[in-house]
C-alpha cells in the first residue's frame, strides 16, 4: 500500500511540475533503473564492497548512495559518466548509450524537488 501511495504522490508531483520541466515518464525511469542496476550499482549501490558509495561517504556526502540522492542534476550525471572522476573511469557509448544515459539521469533525478 505504501508503495502505491508513493507512486501516486510521485505522479501528482510530476503532473504539477510538468510545465516546469520535461518530466521523465515512468517507462524511462524504469529503464533507467535497469541500466543503473547493470552499470552503476556494482560501485554505487548499497551493501559491502561498493567503492563508489564508500568514497562518497568518506567525502561526507549524505546520502552516499546515488539512488537516494535528490540533488543530482542531469548535466552532472552525464559529466561523471562521460568523463569519470578520480578512480571512476568514463563509459563508452557501446557500454552506456546516450539513450541509456538519459534513462539513468531520469532515474537518479526522479525524486528531485522541482
Amino acid at each position, binding site marked *: 500500500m505504501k508503495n502505491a501511495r508513493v507512486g501516486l504522490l510521485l505522479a501528482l508531483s510530476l503532473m504539477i511540475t510538468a510545465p516546469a520541466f520535461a518530466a521523465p515518464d515512468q517507462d524511462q525511469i524504469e529503464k533507467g533503473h535497469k541500466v543503473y542496476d547493470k552499470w552503476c550499482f556494482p560501485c554505487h549501490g548499497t551493501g559491502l*564492497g561498493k567503492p563508489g558509495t564508500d568514497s562518497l561517504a568518506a567525502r561526507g556526502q549524505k546520502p552516499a548512495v546515488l539512488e537516494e540522492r535528490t540533488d543530482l542534476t542531469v548535466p552532472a550525471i552525464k559529466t561523471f559518466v*562521460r568523463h569519470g572522476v578520480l*578512480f571512476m*573511469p*568514463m563509459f563508452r557509448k*557501446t557500454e552506456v548509450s546516450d539513450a541509456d544515459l538519459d534513462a539513468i539521469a531520469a532515474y537518479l533525478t526522479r525524486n528531485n524537488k522541482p
Partner: protein
Amino acid sequence: MRVPPGVSASDFAEAIKQFQEAVGKEWVFTSAEDVALYRDAYSPLMGEPNELVASAAVAPDGVEQVQKVVKIANRYKIPIYPVSTGKNLGYGGSAPVLSGSVVLDLKRMNRILEVNERNAYALVEPGVSYFDLYRYIQEKGLKLWVDVPDPGWGSPIGNSLDRGGGYLMPQYRNHFDSHCGMEVVLANGEVMRTGMGALPAAQTWQEYKSGFGPWIDGMFSQSNFGVVTKMGFWLMPEPDAYLSGTVIVPRHDDLIPLVNTLNYLENTRVTNGMPDLASPLLGIPMLSEFAARFDQGATPFDRPQDAELTALIAKAGGNMSPELDDYAQKKGIGYWSCKLSFYGATKANAANWAYAKEKFSAIPGVKFEEGDVYKLPLTAEQREKVHKPQFGIPSLAMFSIGARSAMNPEPSTGHMWFSPIIPRTGEAIFEANRVFAQAAKELGLPFLNFNLPSTYWERAFIFIFAFPVVKDIETNKKNVASFRKLIQVAADHGWGEYRTAPVFQDAIMNTYSFNNHALLHFHETVKDAIDPNGILSAGRYGIWPKHVREAKS
C-alpha cells in the same frame, strides 16, 4: 580529426565511410568527444602529448561485421585495436598501444551462446562481462560458478586473453588455462575455429581443447595475431560446501616451511581454493579481508599503532630482524598467516583441513584458527559478508584501492599494476622484498613496504603491487620512470612480469631476451606472415609490424 599514422586523410575518410556501411553509422565514433571515451582512464600519461589515444572507434555487432572491418582496414592499411569490454583498468583500459589506431570495440557482441550445466561450460562473445554471465546463470538457476577476476565488469574473453586470474579452484582461476575452444577472425578477415571447433559438426568444441595438429590458441593471448570472436570456458560446478581455516606461524623464518607445506597441499589438491597470505605482525591484510576492512572505514593497509612495533618495523626495513621475532613472541602476534579454502563435500573439507593442520604442525608454535563453514549456496546474508570472488560472485570492491577513505583523504585517479612472477618459496618472498625495498628507497618511492605475493597461479607467486596514478603530471612521470627501473631490477634477478599496461609492453618484452631476443623474433616472423599489412594491434606486447620496425631502426 586525428588520422592514423601513415594513412592519408582522404583514405581515412573513405575507410570511415566504409566502416559506417559495415556496422551502421551510429556505431562508428569519430567526434573528439566520443573518441575521448576510449582514453585509458588510468593512463599514467594522461594529459601528456604522448598519451596513447585512438583516432576513431568502430563497434561491430557480429563476426561478419568484424570481418568486414578487418578487410577495410587491410585495404587502407589502417591500424585497428580490438578491445572486448575495455575495462582492464590498471593494464591499459580501451586505449590502443599505437596512438591513432582505430579501436575495434567488441562490447556490442555480448551474446551468451551456450551455458551447459551438465558438462559445466559456457560459450560467449567478447562483449559479455562477468556480471552478464553471472546474472544469466542466476536467472536460469544453474548450479554453476564463474571464476571472476577482481573487476566484475571485465570480459571473460578479454581477461582470459590477457591471462588474468581469479579466486576459485586452480584449474578455474587461471583464466586462459580454463578456456576451451576459440573462434578467431584472422588479419586477412577469414574466420577460423580452433581445437575441436575446426571439425564442422563438432560436438566437443568446449570439452577438448587442442583438437588435431598444432594447438595454436596460446598465440592469440597477449598478442596481435587475430580478433577472438567466441571462446568457450570451463565452469566450476557449485560445490556442496565451503570451509576455511587459518594457519598462523610465530617467526620470520617460518614463512619458508609455511610456503613449502602450502605447495605440497595445493599440488596434491588438499586445499583447492586460493590461499591467502597475510602478516598479522606487519599489518598486511588478507586479500579476502581487503574489501571488508575498507567497508569498516579502515584502510586495508593500516599499520599497527604500537610505537615500539612501528619503530622495529622501520628499523628492519623489510629484512629479517630478531627483535621483531621477539616482539611477535612477546605479544603473541603471529608473524605470518595463511588462510586456506576448501570447496567440496562437507566431510571431505573437514578431513582436508584436519590433514593440513597435521602437516603444518611440524612448524613449532603454529596456531590454527577455524574459519567459516558454509553449506552452499550461500544465504543472502552470507553473500553480503563474504569475499565475493571466492564464491564466484563478481564485484567491483577491489577498486577501493587508492579510493578516498577516512584514512586516505588524497585519493588517486587510478593505478597501474607492477606484477612480476617470483618462485613459490618463502626464500623468494624475502629476496623480492629486500630487492624491491632497496630499489624503492633509491627511487624515492613512498608506497612500497613489505609485500606478500598473490597466489592466483598454482605453481608461482605474483609479487604484485600498485603504482598510483594521480592528477599531477610530474608525479606520474616520476612513477613511470620508477616503474621502468623496477622492470629492469626484476629482470636482473630472474623475475619477469606476467602482464602490463601498453606503456610498458616494449620494455618488458625486451627483458625476455634469451638468445638475442629469439622469442620476439619468432613472434615477428609469425606476425609478418599472418598480418602482412600489420593492421592488428600494432605494438601490443612489444610486437610491431614490419613497417613500424623498419621505420624505428
